[in-house]
């Protein structure tokens, strides 16, 4: 007599639908040493934790500079040092420029009107392309 066996359905453990991004970086030996030292100082055991904290700090710095806040340290004696980080300066909203009056000759205004009302602007020069891509 054949025994009927019930097939037991095996449930796979729930797999997170969110994909994790792998991050790989080529570090110079000095940078590698810095990372190891920082991990020790901060008692971080994994590169993932290190990167996660670094991103959090960077994200905070970007958001502060976007608001126009300066980032500085203050020593016990009150001496302050302002963080200068070129990439952060790019997001700082130091954009409000004051207004000035310029004198124009009649011929300059004609020339300006012709340039401004041109249907197409000039193509960028090589130097301009480099300037905007550097």
């Amino acid at each position, binding site marked *: 007599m054949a025994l009927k066996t019930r097939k037991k359905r095996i449930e796979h453990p729930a797999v997170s639908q969110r994909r994790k991004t792998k991050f790989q970086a080529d570090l110079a030996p000095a940078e590698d040493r810095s990372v190891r030292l920082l991990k020790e100082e901060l008692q971080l055991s994994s590169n993932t934790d290190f990167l996660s904290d670094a991103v959090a700090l960077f994200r905070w710095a970007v958001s502060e500079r976007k608001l126009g806040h300066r980032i500085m340290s203050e020593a016990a004696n009150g001496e302050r040092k302002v963080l200068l980080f070129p990439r952060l*300066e790019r997001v700082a909203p130091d954009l409000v420029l004051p207004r000035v009056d310029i004198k124009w000759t009649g011929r300059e205004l004609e020339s*300006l009107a012709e340039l401004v009302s041109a249907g197409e602007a000039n193509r960028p020069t090589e130097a301009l392309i480099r300037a905007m891509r550097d």
Partner: protein
Amino acid sequence: MAIVIRRLEEHDEVENFDCGDDALNNYLKRHAWTNQQKSSIGVSYVALDEDAPRTVLGYFTLAMASVPRDAFPKKYVRGLPPYDLPLILLARLAVDRRFAGRGLGHALISEALRISLRVADEVGCRSIITDAYRDRVNWYARYGFVPIEGAAATGPQRMFLDMRTIRAALPR
């Protein structure tokens, strides 16, 4: 040498700055901070070495300007937008001569153009103009500035750069 470009600050060291031009030296030493902070008639940005972050090696000054629509000759008015024409003035740009030839001028104008684009995106602006010394006209022309005709033969040459040209140079 790692270069930082940022807004001029009160305690930046400008006294030893020497670009070889008295007017440009004097503006930075005597007027740039006052004009920026008190009079609000120009914002100066300075180039500094990260290792000596107070010593100014180069600078440029930006301001907004506009041309009233009714100032244009009548035959051109129809082709223009029905508003005053907003412009950004690249008022000054100079590099300390001890640091000439190291790409500081290129770094400064790159930053000036980036800032101008951001300003144009935020407040609307059609072009940048500058009054170039005659011996610097070719340098500005390399970046696409076009001479505006009609300037006196002996004074500076007013030059024009269209924002559309700058946008076209951005990486895609």
